[in-house]
């Protein structure tokens, strides 16, 4: 259990400022819904939608890339082995050990969040606040590996070898895949069968292999229980993440969360669609109790809706030290200078415009069949803020027996009906019990008059089975219409003479 301490200290002036800001947001009519970013209390969904997920921090500044990898390896560290294709032979100073806490902080800060609003009692003014527990989970990860021999006979060149922290690191280049595969297998690296086929392309593409195992003695001497993230830095024109080597098989989906820092703006995939997760939706109050599961279902549905082949944007924000509003509401404290430095965004050193930095968080759930190509990224000048944010509203407290109160109850019931519909379309949660929530405040005798039937253009079963059906029908109709127009134009407008 943890509380958002800032929110508890909320003073009246703060609330006033916030309300004024909200009003301004309405008036200015900015491109994105600024007005929506006003709320007081938050909870967040944990990044771990699945048991196995990798997390990567990417920093891109010109040609320079810093990659920090946190694997969720679970098990005996001596079994850990990792092979990462890299574009250049890394020097010892370009490889560092990072702190796992950095991942935890970034994850907590940028995660999907729930926000609460409190309705005013229409019969008398009263504000009531309470803090909401946020969900968190522990993480555990570890790594491991083995020994190497007769590399040269196999056409494998050990370009460099370092011991850094608890890791023994080798950088290999290879002439052909069979030798490399043999070498890796001899040295205890298990290459997934599906991954073997990509060794050749990587070798031909002049990539080197960054090979990591755990040095058990060093680890004991250092006294760490878990394996810490590895960070590497290099200059390259290519801004990409090699996915294929780690892919197990077509059906088995793997999750990866990417936290990226750039000077100019968002990063996005260039060879897959980058799609925003649903955000700023009003959801029922009771979802607060189960927000982690809710977001997992929201993500699963979005993933299916995009035919499993999109990259999802979960967070994008200007986190420059000089920028005032880092988030609204903040789940945890925004990253500080030390965090940027640790992540490798070393240009962030003060409060001037030179230290501007933009934070993007992407989630990729990839399978072999839908992600045939490695992920290529580009840095864009897009500084539009985005957060996965879900809104809950507490009903007014106290006596609602005045005339205004009656109207309020009607509005509240209608609003809750919409929230329940939203819940069904977002997360697929449906239950007859939700009626109790909808009609919670409505006297029994009002209910029959209140229930209204809505008109649906498409039958509900179709919409439920294919949420995108209306879109597709529209698109198909447009194309058919165009074709028909073309055909008619040709038929009837031919010169008759």
């Amino acid at each position, binding site marked *: 259990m943890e509380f958002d301490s800032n929110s508890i200290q909320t003073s009246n002036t703060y609330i006033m400022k916030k309300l004024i800001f909200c009003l301004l947001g309405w008036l200015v009519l900015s491109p994105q819904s600024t007005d929506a970013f006003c709320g007081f209390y938050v909870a967040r969904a944990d990044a771990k939608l699945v048991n196995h997920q990798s997390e990567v921090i990417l920093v891109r500044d010109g040609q320079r890339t810093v990659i920090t990898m946190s694997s969720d390896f679970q098990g005996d560290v001596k079994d850990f082995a990792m092979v990462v294709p890299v574009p250049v032979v890394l020097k010892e100073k370009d490889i560092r050990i990072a702190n796992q806490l950095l991942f935890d902080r970034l994850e907590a800060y940028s995660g999907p969040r729930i926000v609460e609003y409190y309705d005013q009692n229409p019969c008398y003014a009263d504000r009531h606040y309470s803090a909401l527990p946020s969900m968190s989970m522990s993480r555990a990860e570890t790594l491991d590996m083995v020994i190497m021999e007769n590399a040269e006979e196999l056409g494998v060149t050990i370009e460099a070898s370092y011991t850094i922290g608890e890791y023994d690191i080798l950088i290999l280049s290879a002439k052909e895949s069979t030798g490399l595969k043999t070498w890796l297998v001899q040295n205890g690296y298990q290459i997934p069968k599906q991954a073997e*086929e990509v060794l*050749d392309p990587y070798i031909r593409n002049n990539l080197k292999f960054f090979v990591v195992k755990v040095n058990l003695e060093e680890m004991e001497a250092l006294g760490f229980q878990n394996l810490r993230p590895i960070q590497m830095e290099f200059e390259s024109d290519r801004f990409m993440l090699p996915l294929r080597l780690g892919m197990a098989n077509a059906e088995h989906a793997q999750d990866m969360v990417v936290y990226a820092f750039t000077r100019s703006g968002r990063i996005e995939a260039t060879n897959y669609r*980058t799609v925003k997760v649903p955000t700023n939706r009003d959801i029922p109050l009771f979802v607060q109790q189960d927000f982690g599961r809710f977001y997992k279902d929201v993500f699963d549905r979005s993933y299916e809706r995009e035919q499993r082949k999109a990259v999802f944007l979960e967070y994008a924000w200007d986190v420059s030290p000089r920028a005032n509003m880092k988030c609204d509401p903040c789940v945890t404290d925004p990253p500080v200078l030390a965090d940027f430095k640790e992540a490798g965004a070393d240009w962030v050193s003060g409060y001037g415009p030179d230290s501007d930095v933009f934070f993007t968080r992407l989630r990729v759930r990839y399978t072999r069949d839908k992600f045939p190509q490695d992920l290529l990224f580009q840095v*864009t000048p897009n500084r539009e803020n985005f957060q996965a944010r879900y809104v809950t509203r507490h009903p007014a407290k106290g006596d609602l027996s005045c005339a205004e109160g009656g109207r309020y109850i009607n509005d509240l019931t209608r609003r809750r009906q919409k929230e329940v519909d939203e819940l069904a379309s977002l997360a697929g949660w449906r239950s007859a019990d939700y009626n109790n929530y909808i009609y919670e405040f409505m006297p029994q005798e009002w209910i029959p008059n209140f229930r209204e039937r809505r008109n649906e253009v498409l039958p509900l079963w179709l919409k439920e089975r294919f949420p995108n059906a209306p879109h597709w029908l529209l*698109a198909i109709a*447009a194309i058919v219409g165009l*074709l028909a127009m*073309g055909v008619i134009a040709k038929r009837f*407008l031919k010169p*008759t003479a």
Partner: protein
Amino acid sequence: MIRTFLRLFNDPRVLQLSILGSLLVYGLVALNWSAELWRWTAFAIPALLTQWMGNQLTGARGYKSAWITIFGLCLLLYASSWWVAALCAILSIGVKFVIRADGKHFFNPSNFGIVVVILLTGEAWISPGQWGSGAFWIFAIGGGAMLTTIKVKRLSTAIAFIATLFFLESIRTVFYLGWGFDVLVHQFASGALLLFTFFMITDPVTTPRHHVARIVWAAGVAVLAFALTHWVYLYTAPIYALIILSPLTPLINRWFPAEKFLWNSTQIQFKPQTLIS
């Protein structure tokens, strides 16, 4: 009345406009693009004003080409602020009146505007991934409809470009690097590439007139795009390749003379008098 309406389609630019428009609708409804009205307005108004000024100064007529440019920009270019979009629109339309050879512009308008604004301001970008790989059939149908209507051997430009690129990519990706065919298919299902193939490089005014010369030229664009993709790591290489090779068009036209292309020429149009009868 229907005939009056259909007669609009005598000019292939009208069909092109409606296809570009429906691609935009497709993006909005099926791909959930956000409707950035401010950006579209920032493209449309300056573009139309520039076209109007150009028309006044040179005696040219019509706004259809300007609208095609506007739709192309809406589909391709993102900008971080409205002035960048406006600048791009002005450059795109302006270049038609300013940079000319032999009485004809040779830079593809939206191509020129996009490249100059990206390089000059750094505040604009193309999202090559925004179409995903599912848009393939939409493009194939739209592009096919477009090209069959234009006829006039323009299909050859698109085919020469895409076939050359496909040939080079398949040699590199499949036969040299050893990736599976799915990687190749994924590369070519890119909506941005298909948009370029069907709607940018096929522009009859800014491509060489001579049939064979045009095919060779389109293949040249493909070769350059291939080189830029793999040696400079430009993800939107075709657009850069086109702007680099565009100045060759007037030269090629001089070396290989052929009939000048007119949008309303009898090559593509049904005779109005037969319609009225």
